[in-house]
């Protein structure tokens, strides 16, 4: 090696002492992490393909297999079903937050990030944010597929946008639960299973796919407090017109409550994930 090749500039990290600088770099860190996580979907297109095919398949199967046999009042089954499918999709999508974090932990990436002078919050924020972006993409795609097979939002554009936003926001709240799980179990496969086992009953024991009237009394009581029921009812009301007075505040309360509990919880787990 020659002298020139050996010489290297003494590069030093930027100063983050002022609040403005530190805020600027925190946002930059979150952006870099989000970008890094989303690159995964560009590099593994099959991952995105399969994670979209599944909800599309659910949508088609439910519509054409159960659709004929299920009677819902004042709307077509596809209009009833689509909000449920959207919620199911973001909830399952949120599992990836925990899986991704567990992977980073077990592959030493978290060690690398922790040894850098980056914002502590950026690893978690970047992860939940990138999963939210992916969720938003799948939600839009599902709404499009739904439209092709007869789904029609009759309540105007703005409420429809609000409905989709609500779904994505619910996904974000669940991402933080998943993050807590992933950082606790620290293994990708365990994180996957540990989230699936409770998300399944949560989705099915709700008004996501069928009206709850025919369910046994005990189960109905559960569906009444289930966040999925609140969200499905609110999204339906926003899309098709209807009373959001009960379901929308309930959904927002759930989202707020989950974030309030699980953001600090996950951050704590991250800090202590040694």
């Amino acid at each position, binding site marked *: *090696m020659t*002298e020139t*090749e*050996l*010489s*290297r*500039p*003494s*590069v*030093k*990290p*930027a*100063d*983050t002492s002022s609040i403005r600088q530190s805020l600027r*770099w925190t946002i*930059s*860190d979150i952006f*870099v992490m989000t970008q*890094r996580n989303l*690159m*995964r979907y560009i*590099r*593994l297109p099959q991952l995105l393909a399969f994670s979209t095919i599944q909800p599309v398949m659910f949508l088609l199967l439910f519509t054409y297999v159960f659709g004929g046999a299920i009677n819902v009042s004042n709307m077509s089954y596809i209009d009833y079903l689509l909000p449920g499918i959207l919620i199911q999709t973001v909830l399952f999508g949120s599992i990836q937050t925990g899986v991704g974090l567990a992977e980073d932990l077990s*592959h*030493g*990436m978290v*060690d*690398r*990030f*922790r*040894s*850098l*002078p*980056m914002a502590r919050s*950026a690893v978690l924020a970047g992860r939940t944010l990138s999963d939210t972006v992916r969720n938003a993409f799948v939600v839009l795609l599902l709404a499009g597929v739904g439209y092709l097979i007869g789904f029609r939002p009759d309540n105007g554009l703005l409420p429809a946008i609000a409905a989709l936003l609500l779904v994505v926001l619910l996904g974000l709240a669940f991402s933080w639960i998943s993050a807590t799980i992933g950082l606790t179990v620290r293994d990708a496969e365990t994180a996957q299973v540990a989230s699936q086992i409770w998300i399944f009953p949560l989705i099915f024991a709700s008004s996501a796919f069928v009206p709850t009237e025919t369910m046994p009394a005990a189960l109905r009581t559960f569906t009444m407090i289930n966040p999925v029921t609140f969200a499905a009812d609110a999204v339906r009301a926003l899309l098709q017109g209807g009373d959001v007075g009960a379901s929308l505040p309930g959904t927002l309360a759930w989202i707020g409550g989950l974030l309030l509990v699980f953001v600090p919880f996950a951050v704590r787990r991250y800090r202590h994930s*040694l």
Partner: protein
Amino acid sequence: MSRSPGFSRCMPAGAGTSCRKSLVRLKPGIPISDVQHDKLIKESVKHSEGSRMTAPQPQTGSRTGRRRGRRAESEAIISVQGIRKTFGDVTALKNIDLTVSKGTVLGLLGPNGAGKTTLVRILTTLLNPDGGQATIAGHDVVRDRTALRRIVGLAGQYAAVDENLTGRENLRMVGRLYHLERKQARRRADELLDRFGLLKAADRLVKTYSGGMRRRLDLAASLVVSPEVLFLDEPTTGLDPRSRTDLWDVINELVAEGTTLLLTTQYLEEADYLADKIAVIDHGKIIAQGTADELKRQIGGDVLELHVGDRARTDAAIEAIADLNVGEPHADATSGCITLTVTNGAQVLTQTIRALDAIDMPIADIALRRPSLDEVFLALTGHETAEQPAEEEE
């Protein structure tokens, strides 16, 4: 003294040979005066790419100068006092005391589970100690975490690089997370890729890289901001010999440029080759410290190695040597190699030759050598460098 293939069979696995020892002396020696070094450190952070911040490159350096010269005049940059750590019932570290002088290499040598990784994680702020104190360039590892993270680099046991990104993207990402401006991060990534021989593979996904390439990329990532102190946790574990020597070369260049390095390893050969000073750690305690030569001296004297021409009469040879009363000879059953630790090597050598001549024993090979670090370790700990049950990780 001859050097037949039989001789090398006598050596413990991974032990040094005289070829390797000459390599040590050939380490590039480029002394950087401490004044210059301090000036570099004090240069405050500017977003501009300053060529004036470039480390001065002296034209020549005496080949042996690096070790001796720098250690004599430099002060401690890593200082560890009474660091303790327990995980549940397992005591990972008991009262570790350690100092590393600026611009030198400390090799932390010990078997698996000895506490090496735990100590590195504490010094790089990934783990809090239960007690004791440690500072790096004056920054406390617990209180001044943020300041410390900006001046240390860490490359861990497994290459912590993102498989789904290219090599170039990985380095740019780390640059951005070190808060370099986009342009600067980009330029730095290109420099490092060039430096580490990864330019050709720069735009390939890391998952297609070989183990050695990953390690080099990981090392490059830890050098994005030219750290004052670099921690390498078992940098060559699991690498093939060729990749290992490649990585050693790179590490030697870094050290020649003035980076202080703390390196953990379970390979005695590696510590011997790369480190100025070696600290032997076992069961969470530093059991010996010093240069490789000092450690070797601790077990006293040299080792006489002997291959007799008539293997059937090995026992007779041993008896003849034992009669000299200069030490207890050991014979290796498979290789037939007889070893003897001696203090007055040259004299014993002639005596041995005479004694064997007297019983008409042909000598296939006889040599006098310094003890290997494997033998030092055995002498210090009473056990081989085999894996220990203690857990390092939680």
